[in-house]
């Protein structure tokens, strides 16, 4: 009954190079179909016995040419594409793009909309950190962590679904604010989540933080000194894990992060365990931010800067007033043409600094749209950390950088 396969399909391609007469180097391919590379990442490792001597990440398997597409779509049409880059924290991507366009146009969303944007961005940070924790622990062996984390993430996705109808590709933010009203029972739903989550997070910490095997697998692994981290341009928890205080929400506050009181955790050793502690603390700080936003958000007031010509008029007045109908018609057919100029704005995405650089030539279509994604730059430090590490540590290192291949490859 056993069929012999004619020619062996090379799942693992390896060459053995003779380095010197006594030592022989093994080149090993990990990926691109690999359970613990968080998507289609291929890592070419050169091994000498057990330790890694060279590591070359190969990316581009999920490259969809997002920037080229950006140069053929109008400003408002590009928003759905932003939540396809980092599909784990879509609202943050929307926010990054929309804020940059608003800076280009020189307009600002009304106060109520900005508060709701902050709430949604922080919820996206929580969702992204939960996916990170689940897959990171699963790679190192703690099976049930991913189940617990996704159980909590489910509650956040329900909130997104009630707010904008979609769980993953939310496409919720628009230039100028929100066009749909806020569902009345959404704040209570978020408050229930805020009440439940701290207890659940203590469960994660009981399982991992003091677990000797987890400590053995993460402490002292993948150490990055602060100046090396700065030099590699790392941002987010990878940088703060090494003790450098750079959080865009504190360094260059956008929206109303200056009105909200929260703290930025900094690690002292810059290894996998410190980045784990930093991200866990970030989750707690996000809860604090959401709580304060819910208290401070005005319950009524406009959700959209309706009077600006750059913004699509609200649905209700389009059907009733002739002037709005005409503005709506022009906006949809011709789009709006922003002033000439170039703009770069960075926000604190869950993985680091997400920056958008838009060059506008005055036409309704952006001339150049550059997305600076944090995990593309953070992934550069993998060879630095992997050199001299053990083979089993590569899985932990990929987990600690927290990459999503959609935003690495764009």
């Amino acid at each position, binding site marked *: 009954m056993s069929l012999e396969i004619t020619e062996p399909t090379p799942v693992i391609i390896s060459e053995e190079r003779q380095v010197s007469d006594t030592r022989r180097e093994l080149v090993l391919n990990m990926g691109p179909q690999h359970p613990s590379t968080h998507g289609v990442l291929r890592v070419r490792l050169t091994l000498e016995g057990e330790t890694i001597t060279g590591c070359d990440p190969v990316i581009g398997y999920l490259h969809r040419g997002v920037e080229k597409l950006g140069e053929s779509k109008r400003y408002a049409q590009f928003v759905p594409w932003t939540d396809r880059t980092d599909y784990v924290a879509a609202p943050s991507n929307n926010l990054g793009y929309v804020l940059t366009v608003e800076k280009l146009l020189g*307009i600002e969303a009304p106060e109520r909309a900005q508060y709701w944007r902050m709430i949604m961005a922080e919820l996206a940070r929580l969702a992204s950190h939960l996916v990170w924790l689940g897959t990171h622990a699963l790679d190192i062996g703690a099976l049930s962590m991913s189940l617990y984390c996704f159980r909590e993430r489910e509650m956040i996705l329900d909130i997104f679904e009630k707010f904008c109808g979609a769980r993953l590709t939310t496409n919720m933010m628009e230039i100028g604010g929100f066009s749909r009203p806020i569902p009345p029972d959404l704040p209570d739903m978020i408050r229930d989540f805020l009440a439940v989550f701290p207890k659940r997070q203590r469960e994660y910490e009981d399982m991992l933080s003091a677990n000797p095997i987890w400590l053995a697998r993460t402490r002292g692994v993948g150490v990055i000194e602060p100046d090396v981290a700065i030099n590699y341009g790392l941002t987010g928890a990878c940088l703060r894990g090494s003790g450098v205080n750079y959080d865009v929400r504190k360094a260059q506050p956008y929206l109303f992060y200056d009105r909200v009181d929260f703290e930025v955790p900094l690690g002292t050793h810059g290894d996998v365990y410190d980045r784990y502690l930093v991200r866990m603390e970030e989750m707690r700080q996000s809860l604090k931010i959401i709580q304060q936003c819910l208290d401070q958000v005005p319950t009524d007031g406009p959700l959209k800067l309706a009077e600006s010509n750059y913004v699509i008029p609200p649905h209700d007045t389009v059907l009733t007033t002739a002037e709005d109908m005409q503005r709506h018609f022009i906006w949809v057919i011709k789009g709006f043409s922003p002033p000439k100029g170039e703009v770069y704005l960075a926000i604190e995405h869950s993985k680091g600094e997400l920056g958008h650089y838009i060059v506008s030539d005055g036409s309704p279509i952006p001339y150049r749209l550059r997305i600076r994604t944090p995990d593309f730059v953070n992934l550069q430090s993998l060879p630095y950390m992997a050199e001299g590490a053990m083979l089993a540590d590569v899985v932990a290192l990929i987990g600690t950088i927290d990459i999503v291949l959609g935003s690495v490859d764009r």
Partner: protein
Amino acid sequence: MSDERQIAAMPRPEPWRDTGYWGPTDPDAHPAVRAIREQFPDAYIDAYSFRDEMTVRVERPRYRDVIQFLRDHPDLQYTMLSDETAVDMLRLRDDPRFDVVAQLYSLRRRQRLRVKTGVNDGELVPSLVPVFAAAGWLEREIYDMFGIVFEGHPDLRRILLPEDWDEGHPLRKDYPLRGYREYVQPGFEAPAPRVRSRLRRP
């Protein structure tokens, strides 16, 4: 317009004007611009600001020296290279075809700065890798997407596109959106069939 909208908190006039995240908006008052002017008089071309951002344009040969200077100057200290990218200025101007743009960020002074330099097709740009290790992949992506060669880069090869991509560099303005020809995956004869669905325009 309905009155409910009038009473909306009127947005601050010129909201993005006075954040101070990029330093003073007047080029002459900006410390970095003044330092570059006196340090590199020949390399400095001009500096202009838009919204609250400050951009400095420098000559191509002195690109790396200016950025090294900005990084090591004790009271400028632009210690982090946030992003490095390129813009194909084919339709905006004709002389130098590309613009290589570096977004710098000073951790110490919490301010950003943008340094631009014009590059023609085929000219060499001094690579930033000796100054910032972050530039490694950023420049590989610029080479992959625009074909700009960086001199001094340790291993400049394609990063996002497959190694055997022989159709030039996609982000150039003269590169068609769908590419010159269908991409045939190695090991296959015909390209992947394109699904012609009735709903979409032919």
